[in-house]
């Protein structure tokens, strides 16, 4: 486990898409540093050959539903919570870059 540095914090805020001013950055950096240091205790625990626990209910699998159409969310209900909408669509500022 390496030491947490400013570059890490900057990379993280970009990945999470959370803007932080200088003061916020300072507090976060301190607190995260402390917390991550605390995590180092896990290094001392020997987990060779131990499987990762993906699900606490290990034996449950194949939970599936029939391919039938069910209840819809009415558009009015959906748009009621929307910060901005137009023509039935959610409105966001123009998107320049293209993604996946």
């Amino acid at each position: 486990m390496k030491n947490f540095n400013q570059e890490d914090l900057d990379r993280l805020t970009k990945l999470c898409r959370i803007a932080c001013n200088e003061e916020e950055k300072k507090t976060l950096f301190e607190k995260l540093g402390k917390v991550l240091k605390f995590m180092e205790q896990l290094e001392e625990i020997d987990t060779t050959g131990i499987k990762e626990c993906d699900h606490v209910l290990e034996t449950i699998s194949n939970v599936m539903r029939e391919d039938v159409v069910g209840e819809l969310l009415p558009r009015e209900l959906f748009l009621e919570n929307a910060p901005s909408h137009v023509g039935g669509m959610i409105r966001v500022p123009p998107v320049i870059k293209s993604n996946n």
Partner: protein
Amino acid sequence: MTDIRYEQWEPVIGLEIHIQLNTNSKLFAPSPNRFGDEPNTNISEVCTGQPGSLPVLNKEAVKKAVQFGCAVGARVAHFSKFDRKSYFYPDSPRNFQITQFDKPIVIGGTIACDVDGAIKHFQINRAHLEDDAGMLKHFTNFAGVDYNRAGVPLIEVVSEPCMHAPKEAVAYAMAVKAIAEYLDISDCNMEEGSLRIDANVSVRLKGEKELRTKVEIKNMNSFHNMEMAIEAEIRRQCRAYTLKEEIKKGTYRFDIDKKETILMREKEDADDYRYFPEPDLVPIVLTEAYIEEIKKSLPELPEERFKRYVTELHLPAYSANQLVIDKALCNFFEESLKICPNAKSLCNWLTVEFAGKLKDTDKTLTDFGGNIARLVNLIDNGTITGRIAKDVADEMILHPDKNPEQIVAENPDYRPMHDTSDIEPIIDQVLLENPASIADFRAGKTKAFGFLVGQVMKHSRGKASPSVVNDLLAKKLQ
């Protein structure tokens, strides 16, 4: 001006094909799996990422994925699971996609396809289930997001980087499409987006073992565009390397007018998707028995049908491939075969004659039902000549409701001439008018015979029975 020696370079192409499954409902939500609704009228709390919503897997989507795996001879995983893939974009309802990262449902597989007359095999790396994103519509001052498509089930088929020419990529993609259509797991409509292809393209010097930097090309909405796009990208990379320029990772699109690939965005140092197991879903565990059952119940697939057409129906490989690769056409052919057993002739009339004539109309083959088969039958039983059949075909296109027997019955000109007493005078006339050809024939030029037959056909306006003409003419020239 530096000469670019393209033949030095070997293109390396891999394809990622997204196939939208044609289930009734979405992958993790019970909203309808439909195209073309008014924006945001086909949504649920799951497909709009409402807090407190939870995904529940559609068992039909799993079945279709297994069908695909069996159809391509892949290994269907006994254990597979879902993962969260994190990235921020407005068309993503949760800002993470639910996909399969390290334990996909289908592993490996082979696609056999016809490339310029030769059968080639290309390897699939894996295929997995994932949910589709919504749609972003761009306007001048804003963008609009429609979540109707969000949550639609996809199979993503990832090939090995094993194709070395744009034609190979197209053949592979068409073969994958055909398989999906034969299995009826998807509408495979590239315009509607139920089939989407991304190409990963790089080049290397022939003989080089390592792969060089690859570039992604997206938004190719037809096989033709895909072929041109990949070709353009290959040339761009060859040129760049020749000029000692660097090829950087990025996502490109194809400009149809410029016939060039245009950079959309550079790939930042590996998008960190932070894949980890989806805690709201449990694993898929499939038994060998289940997989076997699916395997047994698969319909006849394109590869099998191709083999049958070539070995049993004796169709030439090219024609067989043409039929097989287009499910709708092929099914029509199969139906027509029930009426007319002459596969070769039927194939020709469907893929050449009628296809050509229908090109500039808004009609399709299926508009004619069994009539094309019946037309071929009329030729085969001697009712009309092949020459006349072309005219009958033209009439059929003008009046698709009429069957060929009707058309022949209604037009005396279409009824063939069988009577030697009708044909003989025409032959005599032709022989009289073409002494030079007779001389040529007698001199050993066999082509002259054909010319004379042609003249007889012309004079009889195509009605003379070719076999009778041949016999009579041969007798007269003895």
